[in-house]
């Protein structure tokens, strides 16, 4: 891992520590409070704060996860080099696309 990837992984880890906590606490709070799916969508639809939070969350995850996955693959398989790096860029793109699509769907619903 280069120093740049290392720094990116550490910085996104900090973002994720915060984002995951907010995410989980909100889920538990909403479920315990007895909110229905309709109630939740009513709160998220058109909510720019909600969208911004999840955009940041998804991007942090899309940067963080492939860097870790790359290290795991390098240690546990013989996969190295450019093909691995390109595949990890692909994983980042998939995570970002799926995550952003989901966040947008809940925002625009």
């Amino acid at each position, binding site marked *: 891992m*280069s*120093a*740049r990837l*290392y720094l990116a992984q550490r910085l996104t880890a900090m973002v994720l520590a915060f984002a995951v906590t907010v995410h989980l606490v909100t889920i538990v709070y909403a479920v315990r409070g007895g909110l229905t799916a309709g109630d939740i969508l009513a709160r998220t639809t058109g909510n720019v704060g909600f969208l911004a939070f999840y955009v940041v969350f998804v991007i942090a995850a899309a940067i963080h996860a492939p860097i870790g996955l790359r290290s795991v693959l*390098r240690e546990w398989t013989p996969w190295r080099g450019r093909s691995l790096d390109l595949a990890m860029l692909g994983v980042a793109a998939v995570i970002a696309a799926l995550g952003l699509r989901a966040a947008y769907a809940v925002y625009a619903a």
Partner: protein
Amino acid sequence: MSAAATAARADADGQLTVRVWRGAEHGGFQTFQVARRANQTILDVVTEIQREQDATLAYRYACRVGMCGSCAMVVNGRPRWTCRTRVARAEEGGQITLEPMRNMPVVKDLAVDMESFFEKWRDAKGFFEPGETPANDFAVVRPDSPERAQADAGVECINCGVCYSACDVVSWNPEYLGPAALNRAWTLVNDVRDRGQDARLDAVSGDAGCHSCHSHMSCTEFCPKALAPTYAIAGLKRVTARRVWKRGS
């Protein structure tokens, strides 16, 4: 008789069962019986086997006093300097299993080829770089300066390879420079006279470098000199990350 004297006598009685790796990458264990003696070290046991039971046993040592770093082996599963390891501390119920160090090719029996280990010291720029023009004057380094303290903490390394044998990341990623080379690099990063810092920080970055360390602390657990390569490596991670942050590369 004092308790210590009784213990010493008990120690001096009986036999040790010693299983010794024979061969190279492929091979097997051969079992020897060796008399227990007071204050015996693991190296004493190996030497006794080689001198009195089987002259073909290959192993390596030089100083016998914990300075040269040539006698390391895996003793009952743990990498150790054998000249400073007492039998009484390492045996398990009179049994001792001796294997060559991990992560280096076995030459024969208990002797490994340490060339890759030393090459990585060079690759990590683990040597002093004085720069193009020699300094005109003595550098003044205060003993209590933070840099000097950081360098002091790691400088007593004897190149024994125990940490390198203990590190799983070396097993998983054979290019990984390893704890000893990175520890040495860190002492030099803290040498205010050194003029090769940029090249050194480049050398210790990347997939072979400090960022691949998992902070398992095996190196720190087993280093016979009680050094802490894990913290040295953490220092390198810090300095290299700060460099990226500052200049974006």
